[in-house]
């Protein structure tokens, strides 16, 4: 192999390595952005979940349920003497 071919090969190899490095960096950036986008989505979903949980718990308000049971359904708290254990 003569000298000029060696130089050409050396230059091509270097250019190839530079391109590979740029490609690797681009892929890294691409995945980094993707990860950050997913993190943002996750954060938003957590906020939504939080909001829905809060609404759900607000609906489960025991005072309101008790008021409804007593006023609308005319239910009363039970006493121990109203409960009987059936024989096995």
């Amino acid at each position, binding site marked *: 192999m003569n000298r000029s071919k060696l130089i050409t090969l050396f230059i091509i190899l270097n250019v190839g390595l530079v391109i590979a490095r740029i490609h690797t960096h681009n892929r890294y*950036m691409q995945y*980094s*952005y993707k990860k*950050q*986008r997913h993190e*943002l989505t996750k954060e938003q979903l*957590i*906020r939504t979940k*939080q*909001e829905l*949980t*809060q609404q759900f*718990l*607000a609906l*489960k*308000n*025991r*005072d309101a349920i*008790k008021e409804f049971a007593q006023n609308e359904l005319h239910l009363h*708290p*039970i*006493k*121990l*003497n109203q*409960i009987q*254990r059936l024989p096995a």
Partner: protein
Amino acid sequence: MIDSEVKTRLGIVFFGFALLYGIIMINVASVAIWHHSFFVHLGQKQYQTTHTFKPPRATIFDRSGAPLAINKDRLAAFITPSKLEQRTAVHKFLATHFPQALERLVAQHDTQFMYITRNLSPEQIELITQVNLPDIKILKEPSRFYPLLSAASIVGFTDIDNNGLCGVELYKNNVLSGVPQVCALEKDARSGYFHFKKETKISGKESEPIALTIDSDLQFLVAQEVAQAVTLYQAKLGLAIIMDPTNGHILSMVTIPSFDPHNYQSTDPELSKNRVVSDAYELGSVIKVFAALAALEEGVVTADELIDCKNTKTTYIDGRKINTVHPCGLVPFADVIAKSNNIGTAIVAKRLGPKLYNYYIRLGFGQKTGIELPGEHKGFVNPPEAWSKQSIISLSYGYEITATVIQLARAMSIIANDGYDVIPTISNSTESHSPNRLFKQEPIEIIQQLLEQTTLVGTAKKAAIKGYKVMSKTGTTNLLVNGQYDSNKNMYTCSGIVQKGTYKRVIVCLIKESPQGGLYASTVAAPLFEKIAQRMLIHDKII
């Protein structure tokens, strides 16, 4: 001639270029060498930023995993005073709806950021949406939502910056809030959302959820019962606690009146106290049980020893006057306690002398229980060196000794736990301590029988529940007003143990200051005890 002219011109041009080159080189040296750090800093400022990542505040759960405190976003309105586009319109809007914000804006007209108001109400959000001014922006801020209002005095609440202000929120603030992480970010020029590089400067710590021993359903049921009693007797205060004596778990802890933790700004700070742990009272006759336990443990009396209670409502011991509500004559010591006779109890306590103080300390009075809540009161037991002739008499039936309701529950738990020590806790961790035996088995068994007797035929009859072993004691005390005991201002207490097989629970309830006359603990606190116990037994399916 021409040659010399060309040479001169060439010289001038060369000199000009050399000068320019020199200027450029000096500038380069100035930027790269002399002002190196300044320009490096300037460059970094353009693409690097420091960001603090605050972990979300952790959830507080009850013993079954039901949430007691969760995160919730709330809205805040803000402006950037130095960059207002429609200053006049903003001023006009603030003058009408947020005059305080306008005052601040006038004073801080050149600042970068100013809150109009935080924690916006739905009406305020509607106002801001309708006016549609681009200068007024909305910001989401973290806050808390508390699903169980009756647990407000236990769970507490956070301030506008989400820092715990009372209750568990304050006591466990560091655990719940975690430690923020500080990172250096290399910004993306195209988008404010993304970064190239992230370097951790200060490593933070994730917040940790907390599980309490509180049972949400039981807490609600007990709060309902106490609230009903407070309303019925027009009382100033109602307290109750349910404790598992085998492991010290607090299942319910109620203070009535309570408060709404979502509107704590408009709440009287006194209402936010958890008085089960923060207030110590002279508890009266409920303390007799512990004086009796001390006497039995010390061997100065037996349950069947006959004690002469003088068959009178008023007598004198060592020249000191003693009153009792239930007079009796020559009766066994067991009856002295069952009938809650002050005279008989004082006679036996005198045999103990200063040792009574040591027994009260052994039972946990006069010292904090170590409950994981802020503001715990340690109570007070008058030490022998400060005693007067009256002290031993007063101490035997619950005066000159102040205790919190949780201390009383702990002392009662020691009896329920066969003389072994119990440490009250609201932290539902798996840690367990090997308990120390504080009292011998025999006196404990006698006291348990004595308490059962008090419930069946004594002053706590109304606390009895058919089919269950109830061991309880009541106490009515006069409240101290301006250094004098006021017989019109009373406090009614009932503390006891409910047992069926291996199932054991300690209940203490207290009603303070009713304007109604002729009331006693046996008619106020004992029925409340029974109602709480019924609810608890049905809830726990102990049928």
